[in-house]
């Protein structure tokens, strides 16, 4: 069990270091100390993240069971706060300015929702201590949790952050699937979500419509919405097998690639480290996720099990959607690549999530 702690720690550390290298390479030529110092800030966040990781890994996750409603309430509170006081950046109101840093409550909300769902579906029957979720009817199994998930999700989508919202939806579906809720209900939920999609089209913001259309064909708007995808594909493709070498990527260093240190950091990395480096990176992410699943499978406590599954799913989906979006295989949504992308909230929340994962593995024997 010490095993999983070190594995996850080492993998996360390697990825974090690669992230710092990539952030440095994409910003060191920019003018202004604020840009050139950005990698140092990321390093600071990683150190804070590691501290959280160590702290959380020793903090019994069962306490989350009790704190569940409090955490959920805090998340909703922050999301509401964003509406009123949020900092508008890149056309979206996602950040809260706290002291000297910008905090992104939606990152925190993702984790809160997972904790909430794990708690909700791991309630046990009083008679035979079996899980209730298998016996849930459609109201208890689908509608009620959907309302709980839907509230923060709605707030996140309204920021607007369609990507995070939809990802939460996918995590929700994944957890529903894993908690023995009847397939029939899940299919009903799916149908209820997919059928009105053409109708929802009208509620999408223009830029969201544009992004979806551009995802279908990036060349319809090569200088506008399609530009990023085109440049990102060029960056990944031009890396070839061995890459162009650290600090030698022309796409990222000459600023052809926008957001090269945040959402499109994978393209930055891939340009410099090539197919070899990128596939190793993907492998490392897979190994972390796999650790998560292994932990989930050998945990007998259903709350811990679901929590581990949820965290693993969250990581998987974030990594998959971000990398797929970098390669032009998914529409451009504002999702960071966990641990690698520049951004304090994301780094912090990911390390906390990993800490919970390690803690689940460490404490499961108690029960």
């Amino acid at each position, binding site marked *: 069990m010490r095993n999983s702690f070190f594995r996850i720690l080492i993998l996360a550390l390697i990825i974090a270091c690669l992230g710092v290298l990539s952030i440095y390479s994409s910003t060191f030529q920019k003018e202004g100390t604020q840009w050139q110092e950005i990698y140092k800030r990321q390093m600071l966040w990683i150190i804070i993240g590691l501290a959280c990781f160590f702290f959380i890994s020793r903090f019994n996750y069962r306490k989350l069971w009790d704190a569940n409603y409090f955490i959920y309430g805090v998340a909703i509170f922050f999301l509401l706060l964003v509406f009123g006081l949020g900092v508008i950046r890149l056309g979206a109101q996602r950040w809260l300015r706290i002291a000297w840093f910008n905090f992104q409550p939606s990152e925190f909300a993702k984790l809160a929702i997972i904790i909430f769902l794990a708690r909700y579906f791991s309630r046990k029957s009083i008679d035979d201590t079996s899980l209730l979720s298998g016996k849930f009817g459609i109201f208890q199994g689908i509608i009620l949790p959907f309302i709980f998930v839907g509230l923060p999700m709605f707030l996140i989508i309204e920021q607007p952050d369609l990507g995070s919202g939809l990802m939460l939806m996918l995590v929700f579906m*994944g957890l529903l*699937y*894993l908690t*023995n809720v009847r397939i029939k209900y899940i299919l009903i939920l799916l149908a209820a979500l997919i059928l009105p999609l053409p109708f929802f089209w009208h509620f999408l913001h223009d830029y969201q419509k544009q992004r979806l259309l551009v995802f279908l064909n990036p060349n319809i708007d090569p200088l506008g919405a399609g530009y990023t995808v085109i*440049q990102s*594909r*060029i*960056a*990944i*493709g*031009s*890396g*070839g*097998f061995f890459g162009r070498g650290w600090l030698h990527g*022309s*796409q990222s260093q*000459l*600023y*052809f690639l926008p957001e090269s240190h945040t959402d499109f950091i994978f393209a930055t990395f*891939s*340009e410099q480290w*090539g*197919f070899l480096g*990128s*596939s190793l990176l*993907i*492998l490392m*992410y*897979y190994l972390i*996720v796999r650790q998560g*699943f292994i932990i*989930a*499978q050998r945990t007998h406590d259903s709350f811990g099990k679901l929590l581990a*599954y949820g965290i693993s799913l969250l990581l*998987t989906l974030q990594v*998959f959607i971000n*990398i*797929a979006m970098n*390669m032009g*295989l998914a529409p451009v949504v504002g999702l960071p690549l966990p641990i690698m992308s520049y951004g304090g909230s994301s780094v912090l929340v990911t390390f906390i999530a990993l800490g919970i994962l390690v803690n689940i593995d460490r404490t499961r024997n108690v029960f």
Partner: protein
Amino acid sequence: MERKSILNLIIIIMFSALIIGLCDLGLLQGAKFRRLSDSNCIRLISQAGSRGNILDRHGEIIVDNKISYDVMVLPQDLNHIDQALALISRILGVEVKVLKAAFKKNFISNSVPVTVATNIKLKEAISLGEFKTEQPSIIVTPKPLRHYPYGPLACHVVGYVNEIDRWRLTKLEDYGYKTKDIVGFGGVEEKYDYYLRQEEGGLSVEVNHRGKFMRVLGFEPPRNGKDVTLTLDLSIQKITEENLSGKKGSVILMDPLSGEILALANFPNFNPAIFVEQRSKLISGLFNDPDAPFLNRAIGSSYPLASVFKIVVASAGLELKKINLSTSFVCQGSIMVGARKFSCWDIHGSEDIFQAIAHSCDVFFYKTGLLIGAQNIHDYALKLGLSRNMGFELAGETSGFIPSPLWRKINKFQNWFNGDTANLSIGQGDCLVTPLQATNLLAVFANRGYLLSPYIVKAVGGLDFSVKKKRVMGVAFKKSTFEIIVQGLAKVVSDSEGTGNILSTLPVKVAGKTGTAQVSRGATHAWFVGFFPTDKPRYVICVFLENGGPGHAASLIAKQIIEAMNNQGLI
């Protein structure tokens, strides 16, 4: 299967999909994306080498290059462009509006530097160069331009240079020609374009996403084109052009032993510099000129050879033994052939072959021609190089034409009459010959029996291949035939009543034949074709004047040319 295993599987598939996507982008399409990436950030600033010079046989420059300077701007965001253009306008004294218009007009794509001003002065180029550190996106490049020190001299031989046209581009694309390339049109410029052509070199520089100059990646020096050495003699060429100027026609001087063209002049001519200066009004005026100044008359158009053709008839008669030294015919001013009266230009009385050539007696040659027969005349004309392409180097050669009974029967379904034979015997009718063919015809008699292939390019890039160019074909005539005809040609000048008697006052002995070609409309064409010195011919000269009057006019010009050559000690 358990739900968690299915989910596990789905996750493995998801990560595999990422790896597969990576394979596709990085490995399968990697080369394409690498190219795209380079075109994003690498700009090539081409620097032209200079086109090869065109030299005369002694290495004197006929056409060379002079350096001019162009100003280019790297496309980038508008703010920077405005700053750069403002600087340029301050130094060049041109309005910003003009520069902006030029920028808009010449803009191709973000990856190509845009030329905003051309042919600026050296002083301006230097002062712009001083701003290199402040405004690295302004680029001043030297550009060699064609320079014609003698203006229109030898323009038909040299040709001109201009932007490549669509037709040539489709033909030449495979040889590395691009749109907007400057290529040769007409003459040596076109024929030897591949050797004359310079190779572009240039800088490759790195720019950022705003097109801002970052650093120089590499420099490849441009390579100059190869020099082409012509067989022309600059001083003779100058003399011929001076004497021809103002009269429509052409003059050719050729070495009768090797076939080297020493001078080739046509009038009307043009100044190739107008293409370099892009004076489109003048150019279109020249193209629409009914006198066709771009036509290389010496090779590109054919005319009735008139009396000069009598040499062919005489040699055919001698070879076929239809006439000999003792043959003489009486010229009474005209002769009846069939029911038609064919007249001579004078009443000559009894004429032998020498007199007949000297006086250019038509009656003698009507009779000789009728004795020989039209088909034979045609055959001998072909033996002497008429009616076919001689494979001259310059483009636009025509083959001329000699009619024959057989040809007429096959192509026109018409019979050949004796009247036609008589007409052909004095080089009229359908008989068409280019001035160069006429020159070559006389060369056979000057060198006594060798049909040459005239050529005009002696060497390319210092590599002399005149030996390979010199192709001679023996003309299997009897020695006496040549001697008789050369004597006859000498008499044209030396005989007091010879048609070319005007040349007898020259210090050099000249032999030759005049010709006056009747044309359906306008004044007659004038010919003088000859060689000198008679005993040891070093030059064949052909003077042809289109609608220039009687042959006498051509002889006069020939005389002036030979006189001037003699005065300059060229003979």
